[in-house]
């Protein structure tokens, strides 16, 4: 009797397997139900350009494998953060572009290694994937800061920089009922009584925090006076600003576009050198008398010891992806700039940023 009763358990497991199988099968291209096909095309055009351009380039663009036969199986991009964050989103959009536009002859997949501003993922990439061209890692300027604050034993110098992809400037906003109409007014209040201005942004030591630190320095406020409130993601910080819980908020430009458009948040300044096309009425920090320019970027690095041949193939693939119509559309929807840079140029940027960020972090007292 007992043994018979294991049957339901087995039945359940097979039900589970079948359901996953079904999920897999329904999306395989070899199931041409007319309705689905029409629907799928609709999605593709919606995501891409809305014109026939994307599928046309897709047809002939697949890169041939290298002489060494790379790639012959799926390529994995590690997003060194929880699902849902900026790196994860960028990694998934990149994977989608590489796969759907037909540039990569093999599928490109994303997996997450969360924790510690990406340094856990970085350590894993360096220690476990040396020489393996099938595992790449999404990263960004924020990681340069995390490595310093976390005193990570592994640094980006050990990776193989492949390409810098997107950039986003920062924006400073206040709640819609805020007394501050301009950046000058906010700065004046900040100088008069620094701690009364609670700045909401992402985690300590990240880009948002660094920007506030740079502003404080530029307007002559001591680091001890900076009242920075860290939130664990754009959503929580947005809620604090919308509810008028804090005096000001700092974030990437793209994150709060809708709240700015609907008038729920008032933009005071952007961190670019010139005004942004998307927000022509918002002055730059420099215009407002704060001499700070800050660019936050995201890019892709590979593990250590990649062969020159594999590295070249990957850089070619990333170049093709960023030139595709689909990628241009993604940049436009998210308000990202194209700051494409590859190999050695990218490595130089990394070294430069490392020096700048390390100086700022020392000033604001996060590292010794």
């Amino acid at each position, binding site marked *: 009797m007992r043994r018979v009763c294991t049957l339901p358990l087995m039945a359940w497991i097979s039900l589970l*397997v079948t359901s996953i199988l079904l999920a897999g099968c329904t999306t395989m291209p070899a199931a041409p139900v007319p309705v689905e096909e029409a629907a799928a095309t609709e999605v593709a055009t919606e995501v891409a350009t809305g014109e026939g351009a994307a599928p046309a380039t897709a047809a002939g663009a697949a890169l041939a494998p290298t002489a060494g036969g790379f790639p012959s199986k799926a390529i994995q991009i590690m997003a060194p953060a929880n699902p849902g964050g900026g790196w994860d989103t960028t990694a998934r959009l990149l994977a989608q572009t590489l796969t759907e536009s037909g540039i990569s002859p093999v599928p490109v997949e994303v997996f997450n290694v969360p924790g510690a501003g990406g340094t856990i993922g970085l350590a894993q990439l360096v220690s476990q994937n040396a020489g393996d061209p099938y595992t790449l890692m999404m990263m960004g300027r924020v990681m340069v800061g995390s490595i310093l604050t976390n005193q990570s034993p592994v640094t980006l110098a050990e990776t193989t920089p492949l390409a810098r992809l997107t950039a986003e400037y920062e924006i400073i906003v206040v709640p819609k009922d805020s007394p501050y109409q301009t950046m000058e007014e906010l700065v004046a209040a900040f100088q008069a009584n620094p701690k009364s201005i609670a700045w909401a942004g992402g985690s300590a030591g990240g880009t948002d925090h660094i920007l506030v630190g740079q502003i404080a320095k530029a307007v002559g406020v001591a680091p*001890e006076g*900076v009242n920075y409130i860290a939130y664990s993601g754009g959503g929580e910080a947005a809620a604090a600003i919308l509810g008028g819980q804090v005096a000001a908020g700092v974030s990437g430009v793209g994150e709060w576009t809708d709240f700015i458009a609907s008038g729920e948040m008032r933009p005071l300044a952007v961190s670019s050198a010139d005004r942004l096309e998307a927000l022509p009425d918002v002055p730059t920090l420099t215009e407002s008398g704060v001499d700070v320019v800050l660019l936050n970027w995201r890019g892709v690095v590979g593990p250590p010891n990649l062969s020159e041949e594999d590295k070249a193939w990957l850089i070619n693939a990333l170049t093709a992806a960023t030139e595709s119509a689909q990628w241009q559309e993604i940049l436009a929807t998210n308000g990202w700039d194209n700051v494409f840079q590859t190999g050695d140029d990218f490595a130089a940027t990394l070294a430069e940023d490392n020096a700048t960020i390390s100086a700022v972090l020392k000033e604001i007292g996060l590292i010794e």
Partner: protein
Amino acid sequence: MRAIRWVALAIVLVGVFYLWGALQIRESTTYAAVGPRFMPNAIGIGIILSGIWLFAFPGASPAPDSPLSVSLDWLSIGLMLGVVAAYIAIFRMVGYVLATTLLLWGGAQILGERRHLMRDGVIAVVLSATIYYAFSQLLRINLPPGPLGF
């Protein structure tokens, strides 16, 4: 002295260790009304107090059916610990299916009566292969393939 009083002393030690850990936290120089050490200190002190409290009021003697009065099979616990530790150690080396088969089979033997060697072996192989296929091939979770490719 009753066992629970020793446990209470151990708890005090845990609290002292926790406070020592809290001492290692660097206070940053930026403005923070309450720093990163505040809560850890409070927790550490609380743990010590809870230990003292338990030492003073250990409660009634254990009832015969409470977990405190069960005599334990330490050999099985040790074996179980060993099997799981070995599993983690060889997980990447030998691949998911093989390692998991050993875990399922070994675990069942330790917990069970060591009678159904064959039956458990078959279940272990089938179950670990099913899990590997479902999660690695269909859901695309990276599970270590091992030298044999599965």
